[in-house]
């Protein structure tokens, strides 16, 4: 279970972030509060992905065999891609008028 969580960690962070910003925008439509909440969620997700990336990369270096290494590699790239996707997800907050 732990292994699954770390392998899918980046994607789970993305999902949590997405539903957080969606909820913020839906509960406070047209309200600046929505943007502030979304910003907080985005920063938190960036942090979480950073931690995941650091963690999985560390494990990858000390992996016991090829399969272990493989799972941490998938986890690390997942966290990296999630970081990117979260940044995209935060772009509506900075898109200029």
């Amino acid at each position, binding site marked *: 279970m732990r292994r699954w969580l770390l392998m899918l960690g980046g994607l789970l962070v*993305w999902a949590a972030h997405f539903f957080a910003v969606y909820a913020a*925008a*839906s509960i406070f439509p047209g309200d600046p509060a929505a943007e502030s909440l979304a910003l907080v969620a985005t920063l938190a997700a960036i942090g979480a992905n950073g931690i995941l990336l650091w963690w999985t990369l560390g494990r990858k270096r000390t992996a016991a065999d090829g399969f272990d290494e493989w799972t941490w590699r998938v986890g690390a790239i997942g966290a990296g891609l999630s970081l990117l*996707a979260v940044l*995209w*997800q935060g772009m*509506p907050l900075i898109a200029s008028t």
Partner: protein
Amino acid sequence: MSVSETGFDPELYKRFPTTGERPPEEFERLKRAWAAPSGIARLTAVNNNFVGLWYVSTAFLFFILAGGLALLMRTQLALPLTGFLSQETYNQVFTMHGTVMMFLFAVPMMEAIGVMLLPQMLAARDLPFPRLSAYAFWAYFVGGLCFFASIFVGLAPDGGWFMYPPLTSTTFSPGINADMWLLGIGFIEISAIAGAIEILVGVLKTRAPGMTLARMPMFAWAMLVFAGMIVIAFPAIILGTLLLELERALNWPFFDATRGGDPLLWQHLFWFFGHPEVYIIFLPGAGLISMLIANLSRTGLVGYHLVVLALLATSFISFGVWAHHMFTTGMPTLSISFFSAASVAVSLPAGVQVFSWIATLASGKPQFNTPTLFLVGGLVIFVMGGLTGVMIGLIPFDWQVHDTHFIVAHFHYVLIGGAVFPVFAAFYYWMGMTSRRPLSERLGKWVFWLMFAGMHITFLVMHLTGFMGMPRRVYTYLPNLYWEWPNLVSTAGAYIFGLGILLFLFDLARNFRFSIDDQAGNSYGGGTLEWLPNGLYNTRSIPIVHSREPLWDDPRLGDDVEQGRYFLPGTATGLRETLITSPLRAEPQYVQIMPGPSVWPLLAAVFTAGFFLLLTVQAYTPAIVCGILTIPSVMRWLWETDRPVPQETVDVGAGICLPTYVTGPSTHGWWAIVILLVVLGMVFLMEIFSYFFLFGIHTSYWTAPPGFVSLLPVLAGYGGGAGLALLGRHLLAREGSTVWSPTTQLLLAAGAIGFGFAVDLLSWREHGLDPTLSAQGAIVYAMLGWQGLMVALAILMAPYLAARTSVGLVTRPHNTTFDVVTLFLLYAAAQGAMAAVVTRITPGAV
């Protein structure tokens, strides 16, 4: 250095292949255990060889039927203001084309290919729940054919495959056409979920030893993700169809704006399912491309781990794009912007896969045979659809082309390139597994070029038709808008495509001859396990996997497997059995005893189909009879399962002994019930979403709920039920207690849960909330109804367990059926308690 997941010592793998002769009668016993009944009783067979083939054939039949509808539409639209089809007929035809292609062709076809190929590909003897596959197939077969037949009597649904209310509410669709969709499709969703549970457990628990996650064929990965997505996505449409049918049948106003409902709730529920659905169809197609492109080019897939990640990422992100179907509904700008970002993000994993395929082709030796043509052609088509997908992910562009023929072009590119062409490649590639003769390569190239050309001629110009302003779902159009020539071109293309299909059917008729033991074989030189010598028992023995293409890396593997030199060379118990392995590294855990042929899944499927279809035509009494008959059929089918065998452990080869009866969280049964509970939980989550959505939209219609005091007895009932269930499981493990007492706890638990529910229901009735007067009433009663269903199931399960206990089938200290019932009771109690709390925390406005 060796690492283990389960404590199994990987050093033991070195004992294989074993040496020495196997006992001569061993193989005969194996064949006897897996033999299928013949004659009419063949229909009761549950072997995946048969069920898989029936399943694929039925799905293909629906492809032909829905394709025929497409030709009717294209004929009607060839010229402006033609009268080839009447307005009513056209509206039914386009609704059926979409519905049948999505629900009766695409998803079932992928499940069918999974049922047919996965056991062979993973070297399992069958999928873990063969009777469930049979049930899923028969339900789909009977339900699907009856549903399709509705078009011949003019009763087919005509509200579009998306069924937007209020057009589909009784006010604007008083006929039973809409009910046909809601009940017919609602029912087929059950079949899809049954198949998904089967595939999830099958891929995670029945892989050949040593086939770690990093060595799985990409199709197996794709099917794992596919099934996971069905589990998360389908509950939304199940709830949606349930609510709309309740609105139609009982006048509960979920979507009626005049009573506090909102038509957009349907769109959220529908597209939360509907967009992932597109990926549910595409991912298996992508898995097929990945797997076949590598095998046909005689090389490994380049960037395997990136492609795995791409599949996983697609599945996650696809749940954040549903509102891009709703960019024009006036949702807040910030909200749709988030969906736009996710829609763009989801194209990234697609790009990863496309470049992995190109790199794989470059690193191998591609042959220009028919399956390769279909793969490369599909790749090109898919890329074009993906690019228009990025375009419509940008909101302003979507505002222009939404609901025009541009969109029609876009998704036909995606689905034909990403699913139809890969499926045809699969037909050619795997034909040798099930037919005595392969399909013709020469005709195959004609089939490909006709389909490829027809596809582009039909749909490329349709992008322009959309830019010209032609909306979708129109039965005709006016002259003088310049729409004539592009439509005529599209129609011509559709006929060319149809010609390709016709040629394929001709080839099929000429060359396809079903066979179990005399197949054409591995004509394209694939390297994965499904090409091991096999029969109804699948492979004689279950090999150890050391790489992604074991047949290429160990040329002796086929022979060793056939001579029984690997795991389970015969049947250890005389029954059908397969090896259960661990989910990450596929280490052997235990031997699962599997059920054989039975008429009960077939009967249960017919009765379930009867229940739903008879409801549609408002034949209530026969419907209820069918519904009631379903229950004993299912119980009877389950009754023969979960039997311990006399041998507690058996030798699975090379002196390795594995248990035959295992319980608890590592077992296939436990996994299946947990997945089922996730499905039920997702329905409940969608109810909670609907609840707060409706509350947020028209708060002015809401009244104060009953006081919190009314919660006390409700929570006491549910809490007591959960406690009793846990106590029962605890007592079962204490050998000293009498035979009856643990099951009695579960009976009492079911009673307590029923009590909690009854008090909740009564408190709302006393409170006077009317489900027909406001959306609040409707959604509260819908939640109560769903909970009522759980309670009813709990009350059926407990006596079933008691009956099993009374004949000594409930083993101690642990028993799978007991665990299943306990878990279900715990779930029902938790859901009931949450529902009772949620419906009481929103304040009233009036």
